[in-house]
């Protein structure tokens, strides 16, 4: 650990430590051997199940054992259990993995195991003699709460954002996308330097657009307003610039392009050293040149001036600017 001095250890102390570690190592190796041999023997017993738990607590990244555990459940435990018992067992698995996640929040195999458990929750309990979706709903809702808690702790954990999309898609009763929009707004307001939050926003909008639920005029206007606030507050933050590029898209809307170029020029006037402003202006002006005003010498010269300035202030990328200028 940083700043913690290591005291000079006597030979005896080093020896003692090695002894302790040696016994831990041999314990671990013995456990591993036991579990693997059971697996090879297709042992689906409760005892095998408990052994996998011990091993996974010591090493949650041992994915073979996670697989084995799932096989035990499928082949050994599920066939002799009622739906309710299965539900309880899976709920238990979720509790156990939540604890494991707190210590190891980014181990893929733990997340995988959770997915499998959630997907295998049986229909039930019976309501009016018909199996309902209540168990599933309860587990998925809780899952959404868990992942959102992780995002509260670290709003830029992109694995968690990805997982959240998976959970939203798997909910037995789908949530309206507008509520998701509100969630991204909250996360962006808390810290707009959050690429994942902007990204999620773009995905929500894409799906709303495809479903024909977006006002083609109002939505871009409001979104540009939002991203302008981010750009003006911190022109160095790249997540907002990337979202801006996504909003512009293919650049078919000339009016929009010109408006945005004007806004960015104004920002550049306020903050003349902003690399991102210059870079974006070059990009958008090139779009205009390509799609709407191919012969414009004025725009071409503006691009070249900006590229020259960029080569000066961002000399590590000098060659890139020179190359763009060349075409």
């Amino acid at each position: 650990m940083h700043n913690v001095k290591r005291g000079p250890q006597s030979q005896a102390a080093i020896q003692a430590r090695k002894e302790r570690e040696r016994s831990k190592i041999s314990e671990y190796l013995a456990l591993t051997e036991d579990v693997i041999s059971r697996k090879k023997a297709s042992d689906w017993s409760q005892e095998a199940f408990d052994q996998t738990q011990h091993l996974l607590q010591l090493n949650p990244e041992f994915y073979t054992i996670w697989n084995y555990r799932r096989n035990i459940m499928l082949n050994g435990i599920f066939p002799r259990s009622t739906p309710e018992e299965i539900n309880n067992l899976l709920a238990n698995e979720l509790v156990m993995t939540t604890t494991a996640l707190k210590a190891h929040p980014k181990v893929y195999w733990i997340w995988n195991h959770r997915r499998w458990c959630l997907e295998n929750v049986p229909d039930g309990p019976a309501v009016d003699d018909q199996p309902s979706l209540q168990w599933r709903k309860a587990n998925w809702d809780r899952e959404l709460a868990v992942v959102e808690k992780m995002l509260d702790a670290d709003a830029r954990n992109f694995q968690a954002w990805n997982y959240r999309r998976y959970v939203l898609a798997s909910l037995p009763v789908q949530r309206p996308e507008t509520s998701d929009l509100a969630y991204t707004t909250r996360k962006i307001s808390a810290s707009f330097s959050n690429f994942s939050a902007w990204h999620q926003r773009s995905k929500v909008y894409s799906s709303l657009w495809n479903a024909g639920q977006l006002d083609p005029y109002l939505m871009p206007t409001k979104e540009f307003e939002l991203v302008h606030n981010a750009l003006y507050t911190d022109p160095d933050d790249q997540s907002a610039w990337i979202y801006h590029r996504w909003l512009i898209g293919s650049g078919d809307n000339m009016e929009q392009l010109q408006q945005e170029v004007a806004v960015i020029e104004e920002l550049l006037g306020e903050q003349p050293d902003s690399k991102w402003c210059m870079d974006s202006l070059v990009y958008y002006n090139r779009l205009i040149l390509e799609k709407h005003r191919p012969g414009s010498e004025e725009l071409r010269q503006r691009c070249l001036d900006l590229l020259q300035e960029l080569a000066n202030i961002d000399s590590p990328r000098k060659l890139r600017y020179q190359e763009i200028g060349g075409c």
Partner: protein
Amino acid sequence: MENEFDVIVLGTGLSESISAAALARAGLKVAHIDPNAYYGADEATLTLDELCQWADTHTSSNFTLERESQSIQYQVQYRSPDILPHSKQYSLSLSPSVIPSVGPFISSLVSSGVARYGSFKLLGPVSLYHDGQFTSVPQNKESIFQDRTIPLIEKRRLMRFLMFASGDFENSPELQGKENIPFDEFLRQSFSLGENIAQVVIFALAYCNFSGESTLMALHRVRSCLRSTGRYGSSPFLVGYYGGSGEIAQGFCRSAAVNGGVYILGRRISNIVINEPLSPGDHDQESSYRYSVELDDFPDPLRSSCLLSSPSHVPDYLRLHATRIPTSDNCSPSASHHRVLAMARCIVIVDGAVSLPRLNGSDDVPHSEGESDSLLVVFPPGSLNHGSMISSVHVLTAGPGTMSAPTGKSIVHLSMPLYERGGSSKDLLDPYLAAMLSTSSPSAKPLFQLFYMQYFPSTDGGGRAGVTSDFCVSPALQPDIPQSADHAAQHAERSFWHVMQSVRPGLSLEKEQGIWTNVDIGNIGDEDPEW
């Protein structure tokens, strides 16, 4: 002998209490005296009935302003006749203040362990009154981003200013030659800030009292405010439970007592005698204790080799003998020509809660930190019809959230700094009180009102300055809602070193260790011997 001490501290104000706790912890024998029956002196927190008793002893009818006095004087100008029920459940501070999350005061609270005696919570959002409305004050990147009332260009300029102000600006080119120009001019010239945003910076980030205060001092205040944001939450300030200031002063006294300090409250100091060594006929000739403090109804005088006193407790006949401990340049009120000579104050208890409509936060964003009933509102000069054109008025509310009032009631403290003495605090503050109460819906009703004037010494008093002495007078503490806690801690630290030099001149102490390390050997047990 029981009545002999290393140092006697006069007055249990916040600064003196911190000093007493540090001195006791450093192993000195400390006696701490206050003629009042309560702790805290000018920073005391009183229950409602105690406040009414206090008010009765300071009413206009028995008041004459002593122009040369070094004490803070009070003149109560109006008091509601009736005392409310549950009067003991109100904790009313005579000098309400907030605690910056980063600063010498909170460091003292933590290092001394006194933080454990009390509870603290975050101050709610700071609001500024402008154009008839209360607006939230943007303190950081996120709140600037969310505030839709600030035009885009202003956001950029404000962010640039905040980045500048939170860094090391002392040698920056923008500041050279402009350290003493009025702050609003600086903001306009160097950062092109518009008038509205400049007002926010001057009065709700630098918390200036008057327009035209000088740039360098204001920048220091902005920086300490910005550096405090984010430590415990988005607000830069904490508030103490049970009325804050007096409760905390009492906490430091308790810490001193735990380390052997002796406390005597409620006895008037009848006489202080300086025993010159070798004076004939004095049967205490062998005693090296120079000072003898006699108290009313107290059998024997207390003796000590050193005295530390607040400016208010130095008897006139000893004024020239005492040594004023200087303040540092940053917080010296006499350094600027905007010396506050008086403060109009009022304490109002209202029925219900004082809530302010949040006007410029985004509607999509829930108020994630919960509604706080501790609010700070600033009325810049000229912002209110019938209000002051030169003074900035501060309003601090308190309620059941900090156990300062029973459920369903709130306390509103108003203060207006003044260049001149005289005037009626009720006339000056009524328009502000009305503006505060009319925004809550339903309108909060005032149940009890106390209006008074607080007068500060116009000079720093006589006496020698800067010489090592055994009779030290701590620097005067100017009330200032965001700053006085840190000033008190700074004054206390200086007082501590002066006293230590006088009482233990041979001891070499590392000043970097701060005033809370144990000088006496014996308390190193908490360190782990094995790394």
